[in-house]
């Protein structure tokens, strides 16, 4: 299947180029986000009836992991409200780019942090506290507010969207998994960029700002760091940038050799498995340990969590690929073969999320009518009873997702192994084993 250029369609092109539709979505998202913060802080402390828990960890999460990431890659980043207040302050404008004199410090993020390690750490921090975060409205409210203020703060010190690119815990995995998505933003003709003066896609112009994601669109070969904000489409004077439909996981044909991305794959794989076991399993002891943050049981849980992610999973992986003798260093083999875990991890998260989303989706209707737990009934659905949905298809859907993910992972492993000229068997065996474990945890 070849690429289909979506921006060839004039309607799509003008919708993406114009700032108005995007602004409308931005305002809705920002209002919803701020409302979620308020709901978390002053609404009922009962998570299942609070807008912040229900609409962030059930509704938004479901749409993110089941639709946005697999089909639109960084599509959520395109509409996310977190960077907006900071960016508007940075630009001194909500819509048009009047003058581009820096309003704030506009420092470049130090080289040491120009990777996704901070995002790995921020995701792990949330993950270690997830039992409390996912169930307690005021904690969710505080975390949402903290991210918003962190983004604003970083925007006043650093250039572009420093929070999004280097700190956001969600952005870390959305970026990694966006490599599997069937949508991409790429230049049309490389020669045009070579002869282009000033590179306004990166440096900005009268019609738009330089890439807020600190990406040079002319050099974009993968989705990982492009946030689909459409700014470059507005600035390119040669109309050389397009949004294309393409086969799934096209980016994985060129495996990355970065260690931060490789470890992100392990972080996501491991945390999906741990969540499946701790949150959805019948073992009360683990849930107690995960919830009682600060207790000695929780410390043990945190250490085991980190050990699984940084030692056990990558350790077994490394052990498996050790024998694949090669001229390339182990680090490179490790990173490029770990690419196979990207589609696997995505499907692990899909399978895991299906369970709690289908079980608890009925809360969405109640929270819509009474978001703060004050006794409202805005849409008449406040008394919708809790009722798990589509339970008969859950197990088959999880199997389909996990087996599908395994197939995808094996194919990716074959391609990656081909690139580094090693055998793919160890990776395949590894993927099969972890998939079987995940099947056992979920079914």
């Amino acid at each position, binding site marked *: 299947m070849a690429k289909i250029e979506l921006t060839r369609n004039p309607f799509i092109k003008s919708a993406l180029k114009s700032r108005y539709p995007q602004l409308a979505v931005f305002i809705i998202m920002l209002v919803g986000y701020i409302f979620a913060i308020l709901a978390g802080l002053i609404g009922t402390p*009962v*998570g*299942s*009836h609070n807008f912040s828990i229900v609409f962030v960890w059930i509704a938004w999460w479901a749409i993110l992991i089941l639709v946005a990431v697999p089909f639109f890659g960084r599509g959520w980043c395109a509409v996310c409200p977190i960077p907006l207040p900071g960016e508007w302050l940075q630009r001194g404008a909500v819509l048009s780019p009047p003058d581009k004199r820096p309003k704030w410090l506009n420092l470049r993020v130090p080289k040491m942090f120009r990777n996704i390690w901070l995002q790995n750490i921020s995701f792990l921090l949330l993950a270690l506290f997830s*039992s*409390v975060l996912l*169930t*307690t409205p005021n904690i969710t409210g505080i975390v949402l507010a903290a991210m918003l203020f962190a983004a604003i703060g970083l925007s006043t010190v650093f250039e572009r969207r420093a929070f999004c690119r280097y700190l956001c815990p969600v952005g870390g995995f959305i970026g990694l998994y966006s490599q599997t998505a069937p949508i991409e933003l790429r230049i049309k003709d490389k020669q045009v960029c070579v002869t282009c003066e000033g590179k306004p896609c990166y440096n900005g112009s009268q019609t738009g700002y330089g890439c807020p994601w600190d990406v040079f669109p002319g050099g974009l070969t993968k989705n990982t760091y492009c946030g689909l904000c459409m700014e470059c489409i507005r600035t390119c004077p040669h109309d050389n940038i397009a949004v294309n439909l393409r086969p799934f996981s096209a980016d994985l044909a060129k495996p990355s050799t970065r260690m931060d991305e490789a470890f992100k794959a392990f972080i996501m794989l491991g945390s999906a498995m741990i969540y499946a076991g701790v*949150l*959805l*399993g*019948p*073992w*009360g*002891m683990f*849930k*107690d340990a995960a*919830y009682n943050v600060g207790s000695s049981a929780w410390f043990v849980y945190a250490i085991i969590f980190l050990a699984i992610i940084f030692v056990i999973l990558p350790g077994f992986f490394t052990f498996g690929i050790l024998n694949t003798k090669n001229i390339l260093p182990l680090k490179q083999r490790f990173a490029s073969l770990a690419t196979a875990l990207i589609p696997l991890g995505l499907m692990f998260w899909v399978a895991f999320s299906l369970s*709690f989303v289908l*079980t*608890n989706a009925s809360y969405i209707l109640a929270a819509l009518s009474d978001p703060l737990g004050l006794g409202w009934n805005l849409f008449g659905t406040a008394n919708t009873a*809790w009722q*798990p949905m589509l*339970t*008969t298809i859950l*197990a088959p859907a999880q*199997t389909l997702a*996990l*087996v599908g993910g*395994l*197939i995808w992972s*094996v*194919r990716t492993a*074959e391609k990656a192994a081909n690139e580094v000229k090693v055998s793919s068997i160890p990776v*395949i065996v590894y*993927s*099969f084993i972890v*998939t*079987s474990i995940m*099947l*056992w945890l979920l*079914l």
Partner: protein
Amino acid sequence: MNPRLKLLIFVITGLVVAFAPLPVPSIAPQARTFRIDARQYAYSPSELNVNPGDTVTIQLVSADVVHGLYVDGYDVSVEADPGQTTTLTFTADKPGSFRFRCNVTCGAVHPFMIGKLNVGSDNWLFRSIGLALLAVVGVIISVKQKA
């Protein structure tokens, strides 16, 4: 061999693995009673094993606050206040592994208060692992073929 034929073989094998009826060991259905203690946020015992066809009676004893017990797949439930043991009886006619969960908000971690009911062996799990194995073999063969 024609790749289309190979694909067909794999699909058919897959369907067999997924759906072919397995011989059911004929164990006479019994009546079983379980006393389950419910406290924030776990059941004790949290895993029950019965045979298909058994009549299952669960006595729910809440040990701290009002809890419930809802069985996925069977869509039956019961609630109990501390001090008032309640009983749920149903026939385990659907084989497989089913989670049971609390259906009365009992605190923060309530959505994850979960136990497991195993009716017979968890055939779907074995089938799924079989499918996973089949998928791996299938992809390896098809890739080797292209090379």
